[in-house]
């Protein structure tokens, strides 16, 4: 039964989305790999969520004033969307172009930014940076509203270069100087917001971007070697044509969709693990005139992507949303949703509230002794619940294979149905031993569902299952 096209589809859906139950994988494999990539890259061809239903059940998703409500709403979207890459790319940019609730304290404002990521996140990188530069949550988060003609605040100018577009350095060279930071900050003076009043005592309400020409420093500036009376837009135009911008976007896409790279601050001194892949993505960045969608198309259809199975540690969001999709829970805004989003926080990813402007450290750093226990216990509880539709479906499919299963087949069947997982030989033989433990495996027995669920629980507790 092991079907390579389904295992490959499981890989694509884990990366370009949040995983998919087996029936969806079968349907997509039938449709074809490249056709599925096209569909994912064009979310507008798929229906949006029925917001009326969501909002009827969840009043706090309407007023958008509470962090918890907005986290829930986003997680609900990730679980139930028919446009998985749209949510995945929004989550990607949220982790790179960070704003945090800790400072913004305005979930509604941040949610508008995430909507912008949904709509512009696969478009032109230049346009995306322009949207970001006028996004009120960002203007407030990085203090550009505190940056004035003659009295600059460098926060936005610096992070725009260091964390949002170029990175500190590459190939042993620095990508910009301290003077470039100051000149960028000067160019963005006058880019501010109105209603940037903190939450107390007036409550939360939306801010609006405004350009104040009186507060703009219109003098000449030299930025990355080019001199002129630059305004913010000119700065972004100069940034996006740098080779470092191509490297930065390529490496981030690789880290998020293909394989774990070292943390961003190490990029200056650590070359990419797959320089050839990065080179292809960089070339596509320039060829397509900075189009993210074109880069993703190349990426998903490449061999370096298809061969990178289980080369990334799942993030907490991927773990919780992926498991929930697998078991078929929370397809409706029912009570208990907040527990689900809190679980993500306990696993170390407080959605909308990354620890710093650098975003979450990814890969190995998701795991510590506290978060590992949270992760294992959550996933094991879910796949061990034989009342959940997704778990019932896995059991029914195993039953359909015949009246008895060999211990090996029980293990391998579970691995396939979870999405083409592979185990180290030692792990595999331990699980086969566990399967053998209870005697002959008769699928018609009343105890079979429990036995299958027990196997699923032991699989999701392995180190291998930490990876996507």
């Amino acid at each position, binding site marked *: 039964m092991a079907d390579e096209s389904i295992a490959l589809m499981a890989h694509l859906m884990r990366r370009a989305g949040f995983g998919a139950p087996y029936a969806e994988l079968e349907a997509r494999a039938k449709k074809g790999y490249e056709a599925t990539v096209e569909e994912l890259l064009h979310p507008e061809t798929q229906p949006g969520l029925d917001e009326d239903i969501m909002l009827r059940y969840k009043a706090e998703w309407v007023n958008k004033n509470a962090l918890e409500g907005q986290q829930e709403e986003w997680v609900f979207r990730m679980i139930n969307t028919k446009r998985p890459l749209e949510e995945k790319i929004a989550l990607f940019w949220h982790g790179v172009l960070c704003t945090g609730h800790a400072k913004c304290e305005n979930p509604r404002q941040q949610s508008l930014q995430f909507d912008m990521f949904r709509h512009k996140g696969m478009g032109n990188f230049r346009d995306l940076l322009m949207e970001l530069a006028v996004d009120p949550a960002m203007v407030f988060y990085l203090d550009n509203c505190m940056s004035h003609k003659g009295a600059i605040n460098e926060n936005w100018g610096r992070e725009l270069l260091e964390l949002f577009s170029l990175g500190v350095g590459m190939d042993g060279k620095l990508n910009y100087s301290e003077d470039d930071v100051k000149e960028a900050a000067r160019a963005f003076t006058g880019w501010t917001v109105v209603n940037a009043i903190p939450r107390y*005592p007036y409550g939360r309400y939306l801010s609006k971007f405004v350009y104040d020409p009186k507060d703009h420093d219109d003098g000449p500036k030299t930025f990355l070697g080019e001199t002129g009376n630059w305004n913010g837009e000119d700065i972004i135009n100069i940034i996006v044509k740098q080779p470092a911008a191509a490297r930065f976007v390529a490496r981030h896409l690789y880290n998020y969709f293909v394989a774990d790279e070292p943390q961003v601050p190490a990029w200056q001194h650590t070359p990419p693990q797959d320089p050839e892949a990065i080179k292809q993505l960089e070339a596509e960045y320039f060829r397509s005139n900075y189009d993210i969608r074109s880069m993703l198309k190349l990426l998903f259809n490449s061999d370096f992507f298809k061969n990178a199975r289980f080369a990334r540690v799942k993030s907490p969001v991927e773990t919780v949303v992926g498991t929930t999709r697998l078991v078929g829970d929370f397809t409706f805004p029912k009570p208990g949703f907040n527990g689900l989003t809190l679980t993500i926080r306990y696993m170390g990813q407080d959605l909308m509230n990354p620890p710093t402007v650098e975003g979450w450290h990814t890969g190995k750093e998701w795991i510590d002794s506290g978060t590992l226990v949270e992760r294992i216990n959550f996933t094991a509880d879910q796949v061990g619940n034989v009342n959940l539709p997704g778990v019932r479906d896995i059991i029914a499919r195993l039953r359909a294979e015949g009246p008895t299963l060999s211990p090996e087949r029980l293990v391998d069947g579970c691995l396939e149905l979870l999405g083409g997982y592979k185990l180290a030989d030692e792990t595999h033989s331990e699980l086969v031993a566990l399967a053998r433990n209870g005697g002959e495996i008769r699928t018609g027995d009343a105890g079979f569902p429990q036995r299958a669920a027990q196997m699923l629980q032991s699989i999701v507790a392995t180190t291998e299952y930490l990876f996507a």
Partner: protein
Amino acid sequence: MAANTKAPVLVVLQLSGGNDGLNTVIPYSNPLYRDNRPKVGIPEDQVLAINDSIGFHPTMGPIKKLYDEGKVAIIQGIGYPKPSRSHFRSMDIWHTCEPEKVGNEGWLGRAIRDIDPQKENVLTGVNFGRGLPRALSAPGVPVASVGNLETYGVLTGIEAEDQRTMALETFSRTYEPMLGKGPVLSYFAQTGLDALEGADILSTAAANYSSSVKYGNDDVAQYMRNIVQTHLANLGTRILYTTAPYNSFDTHAGQLANHTRLWTQTSKAIEAFYDDLKEHNATDNVVLFVFTEFGRRVHDNGSGTDHGAGGCAFVIGDAVKGGLYGEYPSLEAGKLLEGDLHYNNDFRGTYATLLERWLGMDSKPIVGGTFEQLDFL
């Protein structure tokens, strides 16, 4: 395990949400207090006076009693420069000792690394609550984070005991071979085995504990009980941490009732904690530190108080030289900092005191510099 029963132990209780210092240690005889707290003031005759100018909130009798016994240091006017009024940011600053930039290492994470650099004991630091506070996190430092001591562990959702035993055996047998399979898998395997070992050891703590002391049913009381259980089990744990959850001290509205409930529970929890240690003859090597991320606005908002600065903290224990430390910040309009109480001692000085004089370690690399220490130890 290096279980030295008399090694100094630090317990930290974090009051999340910003405890109102002005209504905790109350400047009851100051007319400016009356002027500023028309709706959210504590009447003078209810205050538990400790001298002719300040006194405890009426619900803090148990802490007043410990104070009278000379076991409570009150750190007045504690804070840091350029105070942040964001819960998250301010708590981060307290956790990481980084008021200027955003840090990712907690001060106690660093302390645990100093105490146990070889990671010989996976329980050197233990947190009670879900999710690890940043104060305790540092790369590669194992800290157990316990939601419920009675049920803490790996794969706890498996109810049938024989089934769970089997699953745990499989777990450790699948994790062990991963040690040595490259840095990432080795790290995951070690972390998993540490968690399993920590859970195994901790499960004995609740089982071997007995006490006549009754704790409340609120989260803080239950976690303070868990802390005592863990301490009494002699597991070599040196740092224990818990948090009053849900930002509960964030009393923007209905403060009089809410603050009364919060301090009734917190005072009773601290009393039970101390009495329980005393019953087990274990008070001498434990110091409790109680803090919050900021105080609240001087003037009330009609029903509660909004985010402010300059708060108060407590250090409690037999080893503590009780009394008043720092100065009570002035309430005069001209002496406020952006409308809030002006801090007069940096919290990193209190941390340094705890680290140097109690835990016996070099505080400079942990708190990021030299800060004036206080004489409560």
